[in-house]
């Protein structure tokens, strides 16, 4: 059914249609509306046979989720930013134990300095924690990927993190097609756990594993993720047959077939990038994009196939490997092996800085002339950082960087108007 609703509400409805049995909720911006809306759906009786558990922290949210999933309940939670960091130990436990929990991350920057706006640093900090990580490009996909996520998780007995750009998607009111219950029921059978804590048939899970077996247990985790490279597209195909939409899979491409310049990205920024690509295509420039929908497992072969047809690659990402450059780019370079074309890394949109058509247009023009540094920052205020670098060289007690930079830029929040 077509609805004009907030992205968060769409995700809540989608999760509800998956008949979750335990929802653990702890609020953190920009994810809060999702669990609030789920609370309303449970309380209002639209979601039945479900325990909605308010917990005291994110660490508790996922720890309770681990318990309920191990007891055989279909389990959901959501978080963002510092909340994901606070639950980090449980994040690894959920995957190490092989529990098919689905968790939304409303992508947001990580402090310090504290910042509530969107980038993808939070999900990326957990990229190697053993969870499958799927990134939504649109709110429609956010709905659809959550429905697929439960099936992927339960097929593999492995947790899935659905990454949805905070504010940009979670707080946008848009037209979404919310599936019917019977469609979802046809697609997603009841949860049949691979392992279950059952008093009538007692087992123990979570035993200590020593050097004699740890590698093998870890190998199995890796093996399951490699299996996911096949299962994710299969489940997307099944989804398409029932719902008529291609919303998941490993990657998607946009006007990439004959592109000399290929943008590689993930998440909602592909929307604005597609607009810029159309403008440039109208001028006869051969540019296209590939969007990574599954970041873990990382689809090396599928990306390699697209990269090998192009003259240059620009990885555009909303996160930063401090001291290295790109997080996504270093993964893309793995897929680029054996090719000799240049790969440029561009970091943009950090801490919610708007990514505009104008800036992207200039960036892509530069890329096409091979006039880019290997790693660059979109719309970096060079004069501000130069001034701060200079200050740090001149004075030992140069002060707190964040406060110095704020002082230079001016305390008036320019973001309010631009």
């Amino acid at each position: 059914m077509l609805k004009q609703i907030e992205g968060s509400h769409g995700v809540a409805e989608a999760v509800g249609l998956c008949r979750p049995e335990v929802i653990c909720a702890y609020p953190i911006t920009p994810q809060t509306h999702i669990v609030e809306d789920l609370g309303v759906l449970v309380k209002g009786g639209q979601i039945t046979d479900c325990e909605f558990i308010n917990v005291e922290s994110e660490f508790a949210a996922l720890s309770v989720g681990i318990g309920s999933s191990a007891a055989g309940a279909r389990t959901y939670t959501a978080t963002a930013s510092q909340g994901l960091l606070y639950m980090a130990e449980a994040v690894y436990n959920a995957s190490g134990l092989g529990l098919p929990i689905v968790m939304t991350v409303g992508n947001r920057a990580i402090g310090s300095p504290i910042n509530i706006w969107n980038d993808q640093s939070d999900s990326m900090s957990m990229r190697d924690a053993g969870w499958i990580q799927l990134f939504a490009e649109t709110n429609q996909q956010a709905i659809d990927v959550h429905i697929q996520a439960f099936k992927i998780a339960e097929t593999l007995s492995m947790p899935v993190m659905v990454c949805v750009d905070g504010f940009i998607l979670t707080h946008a009111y848009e037209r979404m097609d919310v599936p019917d219950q019977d469609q979802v029921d046809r697609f997603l059978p009841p949860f049949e756990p691979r392992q279950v804590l059952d008093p009538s048939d007692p087992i123990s899970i979570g035993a200590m594993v020593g050097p004699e077996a740890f590698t093998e247990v870890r190998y199995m985790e890796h093996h399951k993720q490699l299996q996911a490279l096949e299962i994710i597209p299969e489940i997307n195909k099944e989804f398409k047959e029932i719902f008529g939409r291609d919303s998941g899979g490993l990657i998607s491409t946009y006007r990439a077939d004959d592109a000399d310049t290929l943008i590689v990205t993930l998440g909602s920024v592909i929307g604005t990038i597609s607009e810029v690509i159309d403008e440039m295509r109208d001028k006869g420039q051969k540019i296209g994009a590939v969007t990574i929908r599954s970041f873990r497992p990382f689809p090396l072969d599928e990306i390699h196939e697209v990269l090998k047809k192009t003259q240059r690659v620009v990885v555009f990402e909303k996160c930063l490997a401090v001291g290295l450059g790109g997080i996504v780019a270093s993964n893309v370079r793995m897929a680029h092996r054996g090719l000799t074309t240049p790969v440029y890394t561009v970091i943009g949109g950090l801490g919610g800085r708007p990514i505009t058509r104008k800036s992207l247009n200039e960036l892509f023009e530069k890329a096409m002339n091979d006039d880019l540094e290997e790693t660059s920052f979109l719309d970096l205020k060079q004069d501000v950082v130069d001034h701060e670098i200079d200050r740090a060289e001149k004075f030992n007690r140069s002060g707190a960087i964040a406060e110095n930079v704020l002082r230079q830029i001016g305390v008036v929040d320019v973001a309010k108007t631009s």
Partner: protein
Amino acid sequence: MLQVRIHGRGGQGVVSAAEMLSVSAFLEGKHAQAVPSFGSERMGAPVVAFCRIDDKEIRLREPVLEPNALIVQDPTLFQAIDVFNGLPDDGYLLINTGRDIAELGIEKAVARLPEGHVCTVPATEIAMKYVKRPLPNAVLLGALSAITGVIKIESVEEAIKSKFPGKIGEANIAAARAAYESTSTKS
């Protein structure tokens, strides 16, 4: 594509206005995208929200930089921030005020806009009369419908009803209708 930017202060329902505008367009079978300019908003702080309306899917995710229509819920913002930023020469300007343009001191700034594109509505007063609360957002959507015709007043009423069912919604609908009618006769 039509782009609307709404300026106001925390507590005035700026975000709800963008949301209701998007629902109005949706009810007419259009695509619409409403987003707040994200911040840790609080009562009284400047707030901005955006709404895009189009016949096809809206992919663009940047803030509205060149609004076709600008709604200003609080005229004291003219002194605080660059409200007119990006407003093109054929843009619409709708201000919640009982005063005229000269009294607001923005005569020069709006001189470039075409006749009939600048409109003042005492939306807070109208809201106080009908809703008994100083919430100008729904009222201004009624006026926007009148001056631009981008959405029908019936769609605005339906959107208000879905956002605020019951008596509050009915009062807001009456207020929006009053603004629509007074604005239509004025221009």
